[in-house]
């Protein structure tokens, strides 16, 4: 049930009325409705793995309580390690079994083995990467005494299964989410209206831009060998723009829907295409994943390696991005994606400027230096994202080598001019609104002008948008 489908529109309206009319008397009844509808939502999308997510809820609820009940540090560690092994074990089985299995067989083949095999057909449960990371973070926070374990099974189950974030995040922290559902929520018109605006902006990004860009880039990637170099260069940027519109569009819809129920989810994007360095980019792209990786991987690793100076920082960054890379999928191309990100960090680590924040929040027009840095970042990120598109290191290298040729400066055969004009307006709006939670945060604008903006966007959504197109790309991760 995609956010941009008729089924979801009906579902959301039903949940909205159940939640605010039947459930308004107590937080508990509101949570029962959210849990029941979330289970329905998940089961509707993937009934086979409903039992898996419910197992995840039960086991992590009990592990959380067990960590706190243990008196000694060593017993707490034992329960924590058990919990981590269960969560990581389940994730590895469903997501990485075939990858490891195939890699071992390939390795044996290098040494002359002709072992005949066939990969097992293990299906990927919906949202497993997202809810597993939430569960791991929850257990680590309890162990580190940053939060108390949730003693309300209903609230905990609602936290892990909450339907706006179950498919593709944000990877929500318990300490941010649970306090919001510990009491009865009162309907907040301003918040709900802002949620509708955020949803509309996300819907526009998804159905007009992401789906349009996907249609434009697929013919390029389907037949790389026959394309001009200039067309391939355009294709690489189209894919980056597509990824941003698709994932930020999904996130804005998820955050917008959640506001209708009085619950704020974490911001996941902060105009990453305006980044001026690689560390700046990872502070702005998929923020809930990058902060998760920073807090639960990078920080402990830098703590462990802290006496090795810059080499320790580089090692911590490498391991962190290896995990971020492979989190995206079970293939060597994703590992290469992570390694490439770590390589991008080398100049910053060497110069000691990893922590430097590029502050251009109060300028209308970026300086030439900022603009050049942004352009450079767009180029190297587009290059890295080719690995995610081709899902192959050799395919990416072939693509790049095809770009470096004499007809790079020829006119590209495929260039979606109209779509790029709309995208440019979209990016201009995001630039002007970059200090706000989302680009359509326009409550301060006079009502008639706001209505004009809504009408223009709705006309574009229903006039130009494609609703029967693909699912959200991050759903597969």
């Amino acid at each position: 049930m995609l956010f941009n489908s008729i089924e979801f529109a009906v579902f959301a309206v039903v949940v909205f009325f159940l939640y605010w009319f039947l459930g308004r008397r107590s937080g508990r009844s509101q949570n029962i409705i959210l849990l029941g509808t979330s289970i329905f939502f998940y089961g509707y999308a993937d009934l086979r793995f409903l039992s898996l997510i419910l197992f995840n809820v039960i086991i992590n609820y009990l592990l959380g309580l067990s960590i706190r009940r243990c008196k000694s540090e060593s017993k707490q560690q034992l329960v924590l390690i058990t919990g981590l092994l269960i969560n990581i074990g389940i994730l590895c089985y469903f997501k990485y079994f075939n990858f490891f299995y195939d890699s071992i067989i390939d390795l044996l083949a290098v040494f002359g083995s002709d072992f005949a095999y066939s990969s097992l057909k293990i299906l990927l449960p919906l949202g497993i990467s997202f809810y597993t990371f939430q569960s791991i973070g929850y257990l680590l926070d309890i162990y580190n005494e940053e939060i108390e374990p949730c003693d309300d099974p209903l609230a905990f189950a609602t936290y892990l299964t909450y339907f706006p974030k179950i498919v593709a995040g944000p990877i929500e922290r318990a300490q941010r989410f649970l306090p919001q559902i510990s009491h009865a929520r009162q309907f907040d018109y301003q918040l709900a209206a802002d949620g509708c605006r955020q949803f509309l902006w996300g819907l526009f990004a998804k159905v007009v831009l992401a789906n349009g860009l996907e249609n434009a880039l697929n013919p390029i990637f389907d037949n790389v060998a026959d394309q001009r170099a200039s067309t391939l260069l355009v294709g690489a940027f189209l894919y980056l723009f597509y990824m941003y519109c698709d994932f930020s569009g999904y996130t804005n819809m998820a955050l917008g829907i959640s506001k209708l129920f009085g619950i704020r989810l974490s911001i996941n994007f902060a105009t990453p295409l305006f980044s001026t360095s690689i560390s700046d980019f990872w502070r702005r792209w998929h923020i809930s994943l990058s902060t998760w990786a920073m807090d639960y991987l990078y920080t402990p690793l830098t703590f462990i390696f802290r006496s090795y100076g810059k080499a320790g920082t580089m090692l911590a960054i490498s391991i962190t991005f290896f995990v971020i890379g492979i989190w995206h999928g079970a293939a060597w191309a994703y590992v290469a994606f992570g390694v490439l990100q770590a390589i991008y960090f080398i100049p910053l680590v060497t110069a000691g400027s990893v922590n430097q924040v590029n502050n251009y929040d109060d300028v209308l027009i970026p300086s030439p230096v900022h603009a050049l840095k942004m352009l450079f970042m767009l180029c190297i990120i587009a290059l890295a994202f080719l690995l995610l598109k081709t899902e192959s290191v050799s395919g990416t290298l072939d693509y790049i080598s095809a770009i470096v040729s004499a007809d790079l400066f020829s006119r590209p055969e495929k260039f979606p001019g109209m779509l790029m004009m709309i995208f440019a307006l979209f990016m201009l709006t995001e630039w002007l609104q970059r200090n706000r939670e989302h680009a359509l945060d326009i409550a301060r604008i006079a009502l008639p002008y706001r209505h004009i903006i809504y009408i223009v966007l709705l006309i574009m959504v229903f006039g130009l948008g494609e609703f029967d197109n693909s699912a959200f790309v991050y759903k597969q991760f």
Partner: protein
Amino acid sequence: MNRDELSEAVKAIIIDTVKHDDFVMSEELTATDVSGWDSLSHMSIITGIEQKFSVKFKLKELNKLKNMSSLLDLILSKMQ
């Protein structure tokens, strides 16, 4: 070293890490009050403090820090 001297020395380490002094040092100061003091820079500051004062922290101790006051308390307890 008294608390004020310690506070000044910690301030110098923070400035050296985040590359600016656009913050007011106080007992209530938190990382969110200092632009650039994020997950990436946090460990650089901690390592700087460990080296400067010849102390060793545990990760769990760092996770419990609430503000500058608790950081100074922790350093002083280690130095005794």
